[in-house]
């Protein structure tokens, strides 16, 4: 092992990478696009306030304070409907099923104590209707209580496991970091190594004092650097654009080192193990795509069916993403240590196989 040769190869390779625009796009731009897209789709928990059409046929003081009470929940956005409109037709023509009608005489009934019903329109199969109906009931109860001159005794305090709640973006950042840890080295190495084999570039290199392990090491070093750069870019976008809560700790580093090591070796193994560039690409995709979707990149593994969850546990990327979640989001270092242990064993095996089966020359 000669460090000068490793660095010379690193230098030539990284220059080549930067000069080919596709490389730069996939390494640095693509992860940011991903995080912007997925962050935008899923951020903010629920999908904004529900539009609810309200027709106030009463016009008394008490009916308008009832509307105000409905409006004070941030969950619903009230849209007033003019009294001249036929309410159900109006709802249909606006492709909506959620609406509330306050009948004429609401105010006098409140004062006299004569029972009267507010109508809540909804679609039983829609989740928004349940929310609208729940809120309407809550406000009605409060008005009934107020009329009776009572005050609330029992209440609910809503709490979360952590002082601040987890949001989707908090899982998305480690997931997408894992995505790049997998895809940049895998696709590149499958491609490069099958091409270098076809073009006899490995043979050419074998005629110099550069060794197989030196060549492999320089690729691993390069992808570690690249991974760390894209980690910071993605984390910055997650934090500043979507308010992700991420703990930056030294524990992240081992995952950013061992991940590229593992997938450079795996890509190498697939690329040199295949007869042609085309078959290498096919095998590479067969290995990469299931891992890409089933390891918790875009959504947590715990949301998947049980049999897929057990499948996830044999995929190396699962342990990278699980580990990153444990250190970046949960701060659960003992669980992270287990992930790291599994990764060390897996990458030792795959690295060993890659060095063993990667041939400079033919028999």
């Amino acid at each position, binding site marked *: 092992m000669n460090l*000068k040769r490793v660095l010379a190869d690193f230098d030539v390779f990284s220059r080549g990478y930067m000069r080919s625009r596709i490389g730069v796009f996939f390494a640095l731009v693509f992860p940011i696009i991903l995080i912007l897209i997925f962050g935008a789709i899923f951020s903010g928990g629920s999908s904004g306030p529900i539009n609810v059409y309200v027709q106030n046929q009463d016009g008394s003081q008490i009916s308008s304070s009832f509307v105000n009470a409905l409006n004070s929940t941030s969950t619903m956005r009230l849209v007033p409907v003019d009294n001249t409109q036929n309410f159900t037709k109006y709802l249909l023509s606006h492709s909506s099923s959620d609406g509330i009608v306050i009948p004429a005489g609401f105010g006098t009934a409140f004062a006299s104590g004569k029972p009267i019903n507010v109508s809540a329109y909804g679609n039983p199969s829609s989740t928004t209707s349940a929310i609208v109906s729940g809120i309407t009931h809550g406000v009605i109860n409060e008005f009934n209580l107020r009329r009776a001159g009572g005050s609330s005794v029992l209440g609910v305090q809503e709490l979360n496991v952590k002082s601040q709640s987890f949001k989707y973006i908090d899982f998305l950042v480690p997931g997408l970091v894992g995505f790049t840890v997998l895809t940049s080295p895998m696709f590149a190495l499958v491609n490069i190594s099958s091409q270098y084999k076809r073009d*006899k570039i490995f043979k050419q290199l074998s*005629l110099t*004092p550069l060794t197989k392990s030196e060549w492999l090491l320089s690729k691993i070093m390069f992808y570690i650097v690249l991974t760390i750069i894209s980690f910071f870019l993605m984390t910055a976008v997650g934090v500043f654009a979507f308010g992700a809560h991420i703990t930056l700790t030294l524990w992240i580093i081992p995952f950013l080192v061992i991940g590229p090591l593992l997938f450079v070796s795996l890509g190498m193994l697939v690329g040199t193990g295949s007869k042609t560039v085309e078959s290498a690409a096919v095998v590479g995709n067969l290995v990469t795509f299931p891992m890409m979707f089933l390891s918790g990149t875009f959504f947590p593994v715990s949301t998947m069916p049980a049999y897929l969850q057990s499948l996830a546990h044999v995929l190396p990327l699962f342990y990278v993403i699980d580990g990153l979640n444990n250190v970046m989001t949960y701060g659960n270092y003992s669980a992270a240590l287990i992930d790291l242990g599994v990764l060390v064993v897996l990458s030792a095996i795959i690295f060993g196989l890659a060095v063993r089966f990667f041939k400079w020359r033919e028999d």
Partner: protein
Amino acid sequence: MSEGRKPTRSGNELNPTPNSGVAIGVTSLHKAYGDLKAVDGISFTVKVGEVFSLLGPNGAGKTTTIEILEGLRQKDQGGVEVLGVDPWTKGYELHKKIGVIPQGFKFFEYPTPREAIKYYAVLFGVKADVEDILRKVLLEDSADVYFTRLSGGQKQKVGLALSLVNDPELLFLDEPTTGLDPQARRAVWDVIRELKKEGRTVLLTTHYLEEAEELADRVAIMHKGKIITSGTPQEIIEAHSSGERLQIHGTERLANYLKEHTKLRVEFDGENLVTVYLQRKEDVLTAIRAIEESGLEWSDLRTKRDSLEDIFVKLVGEPLEALGQGA
């Protein structure tokens, strides 16, 4: 970096090879790909300081032979010694002393020729004179162009440049001039001549027979895995030439007239070419006199003697058995 050799360019400072005087020794070498006998029992020796050219039609087994000698392929059977060592088991040591242009040289897409040479210099741990190498192979003008954007011939020149970086004792040049323009080809010839002057050994393959005639001290012609003839170009021409001939455009009547009125061997090709074989120098006068006497139509008279290319085409065209099996 102790393995770095000083970039000396004068031949007498080169390390003498152990096995005195012999750079490459091959005895009954065999290599098959499945059922195909790519190399079928060839033997030859290349002396130190010699330019040796391996010739033969496509698929003859030249590249296979060269790759075995470079330690890139494993032989099936036979003896191979390159600079005194077995190239397959001692390849790592051997590679520091040899320079190679593989057939159809390809390289990383994005280094420039200048960067590629510097990269090789670091790998070999030598201080190469980058500018000197660029000048030698006529690459100065495109020294800073990405490899992938170079023309086919320029890419070949990068291959030649890289083969020179480690100041090699022995060079394997597999079709170094294929795809080069005439000027660039002559530049490569100059490089090869200079390498020879410096005392280096060169094993060269080419499909340009005049190139082999021009550069090679000795050649071997391979065909279907066997060496069908070898020696200096002159020796081969003499051994296989059908001698000097007079060729005239004329009729069959002319051919018959010459047959009847001279003692020379005369052939007619069935169309319009009459060939008269000349044994002694007076024969040409006899033939010309007879042509004049005949009073028949003739034109385009010339004498012809075989070039290495004529011999090559003749030998490779014949079935193997007729060649007495591997000269």
